[in-house]
C-alpha cells in the first residue's frame, strides 16, 4: 500500500514539475522549430525569468494564489524584450537568411555565440544579484489539497500542493494558447511559413529576419514564464540555468523537433521519469537518468516521438 501511495504521489509530483518542464521545452522548441537555431543561453533566460518573477512579486507585493503566476507573466515581458534586443544585435548575423547555404549553415558560429551570451548572462546575474539563493515563498507553497482517504483500509492519501497545481494550470493554459497562436493566427502562420521555406517566404513579402526575431523572443519569453513558475519550487541562483539546459534539450529532442506540442510531452515525460526514478535511485543519479535518457534518444531515435526534422548521416 505504501509503495502504491509513494508511486502515485511521485507520479503526481512528476506531472506537476513535468508540466513546467514541458512549458520550458515549448519555448525552446519554438526557437528550434521555427528558427533552426540551437540556443545555449536558453537556461540563462530561464534563470532571468526566475529573478524577474521574484522581483516583480516582491516589489508589487502580489498576493493571492495566482500571485506567482502573475509575477511570472509580467517578468516574461522583460524577457521578450531582452530576446528581441539580443537577436537584433547579435544573432541576426549568424542565423537565418544571412547564413543559409554557407558552410554548416552558420551553426558553428551561432552555437558559440549563444555560449558567449550564456556566459555573459549567468555571470552578469552573479554580478548584479549575488549568489545568495532566492525563492518565491507564498503560504500556498506549503498548503496542499488532499485527495482521499481512498481504498478499503482508508490508508491511501494523495496531496496536491496548491502553489504547484496553480503553476501546472498556468503551464497548460499557456502551452495551449501558444499552440493556438502558432497554428491558427495569421502571425503564427507567417512564422511557420518563414521557418518552412525562408526563400519562398521572402517572395511572399515576409520579412524572414523579423519573423525569426519574433519567434526567438516568444520562445525566450515562454521559457521565462516557466522559470518564473519554477521559482516557487526551488531556491535558485545565477548558475541554475545549466542544470535546466540539458533537461530542456532532452525534452525537446524526446518530444520531437519541428512540432509545437511534442516538446511539451517530452518535458512532461522527463518530469515523470525524474520523479519516479527518485523512488529507486539515490538523489545524485536522478539527473543522471535524464542525461542517459537524452543520449539514448539522440542516438537511437533522434526524431523523437512526434518530430519531423532529423539531421543524420
Amino acid at each position, binding site marked *: 500500500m505504501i509503495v502504491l501511495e509513494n508511486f502515485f504521489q511521485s507520479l503526481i509530483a512528476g506531472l506537476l514539475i513535468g508540466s513546467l518542464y514541458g512549458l520550458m521545452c515549448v519555448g525552446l522548441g519554438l526557437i528550434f522549430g521555427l528558427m533552426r537555431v540551437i540556443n545555449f543561453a536558453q537556461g540563462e533566460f530561464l534563470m532571468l525569468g526566475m529573478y524577474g518573477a521574484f522581483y516583480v512579486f516582491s516589489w508589487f507585493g502580489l498576493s493571492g494564489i495566482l500571485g506567482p503566476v502573475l509575477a511570472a507573466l509580467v517578468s516574461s515581458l522583460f524577457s521578450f524584450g531582452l530576446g528581441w534586443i539580443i537577436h537584433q544585435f547579435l544573432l541576426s548575423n549568424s542565423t537565418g537568411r544571412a547564413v543559409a547555404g554557407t558552410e554548416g549553415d552558420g551553426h558553428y558560429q551561432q552555437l558559440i555565440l549563444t555560449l558567449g551570451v550564456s556566459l555573459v548572462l549567468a555571470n552578469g546575474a552573479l554580478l548584479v544579484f549575488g549568489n545568495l539563493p532566492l525563492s518565491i515563498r507564498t503560504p500556498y507553497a506549503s498548503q496542499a489539497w488532499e485527495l482521499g482517504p481512498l481504498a478499503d483500509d482508508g490508508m491511501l492519501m494523495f496531496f496536491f500542493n496548491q502553489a504547484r497545481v496553480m503553476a501546472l494550470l498556468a503551464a497548460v493554459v499557456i502551452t495551449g494558447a501558444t499552440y493556438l497562436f502558432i497554428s491558427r493566427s495569421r502571425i503564427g*502562420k507567417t512564422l511557420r*511559413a518563414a521557418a*518552412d*521555406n525562408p526563400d*519562398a517566404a*521572402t*517572395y*511572399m*513579402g515576409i520579412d524572414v529576419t523579423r519573423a525569426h526575431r519574433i519567434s526567438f523572443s516568444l520562445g525566450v519569453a515562454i521559457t521565462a514564464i516557466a522559470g518564473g513558475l519554477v521559482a516557487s519550487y526551488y531556491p535558485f541562483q545565477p548558475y541554475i540555468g545549466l542544470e535546466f539546459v540539458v533537461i530542456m534539450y532532452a525534452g525537446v529532442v524526446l518530444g520531437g523537433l519541428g512540432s509545437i506540442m511534442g516538446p511539451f510531452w517530452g518535458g512532461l515525460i522527463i518530469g515523470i521519469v525524474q520523479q519516479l526514478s527518485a523512488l529507486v535511485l539515490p538523489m545524485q543519479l536522478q539527473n543522471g537518468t535524464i542525461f542517459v535518457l537524452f543520449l539514448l534518444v539522440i542516438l537511437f531515435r533522434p526524431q523523437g516521438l512526434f518530430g519531423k526534422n532529423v539531421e543524420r548521416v
Partner: protein
Amino acid sequence: MLSIEGIHASYGGLKALVDVSVKVDEGQFVAIVGPNGAGKSTLFKSISGTVNAHQGQILWGGENILTMKAAHRALLGIAHVPEGRQVFKELSVYENLEVGAQSPKARAEASRNLEQIYTLFPILKERSTQLAGTLSGGEQQMLAIGRGLMSAPKLLMLDEPSMGLAPKITDLIFERIQEIHRDTKIAILLVEQRVAEALSPCNYGYVLRSGQVAMEGSPDKLTHGDDMREAYLGM
C-alpha cells in the same frame, strides 16, 4: 510598368547576366526562353531581389528598385512563383494561400481572390486541408500560382513552371496561365525552357543565351528561322 535596363548580375561567383534589358507593359504577356544556364532564373531572381543585380536599373512604375530589399519588392505588386514550386510543405493548402496575402490590399481582397483561385484550380479546393508537401508536382505548381495570385499582383512572374512535370500537366498549367491572362488584367512574365509552350500565348518574347539577350520580338518572328534551334542545340 516593369522595365529592366542594362543590368548585370553574378550568381555563385560567375557572371550570369550581361547587359540585359527586358520590358513588360501593363496587361502584357512576356516570355523569356533560352537553354539551360542561359541566366533565365538569375534574371527572375534579380527582379525579385534574391540576387543582387548591379549596374543598370530595374524600374517599376518609374521607380528604380535595384537596391530595394527582396521582401519589400514583393509588396509592390510583383508576385513570384519560383522555380521548383517552393510551397510551404508543412502548411495546408489553405494556409499556403492565406499566407500569400501579405499586403493590406491583398488581405482586403483575400476572400474574393480565394474564390477565383478555387474556380481556376478546383483541385486546390478539394485538397484545401491537406499538407502542401503531400500534393503531386502539378498540384503544387497550381498551389504556387494560386499563392502568387493571392497577393493581388499587377505582375505575375513564373519561373519554369513546367520543370519536372509530365507533358499533360504542363499543358493544363499553361492553359490556366493563359486563362489568367485573358480574364484578369494581370501582366505575366513567363520564364521557360520549353519554347513552344511559352511562345504561343505570349505577346512578346526574349531569347536569353549565355547571360545575354540573343533575340527578341513577336512570337511569329521568333518561331521562324534557325536561330532558335542554334541557340538551344548549337547547330
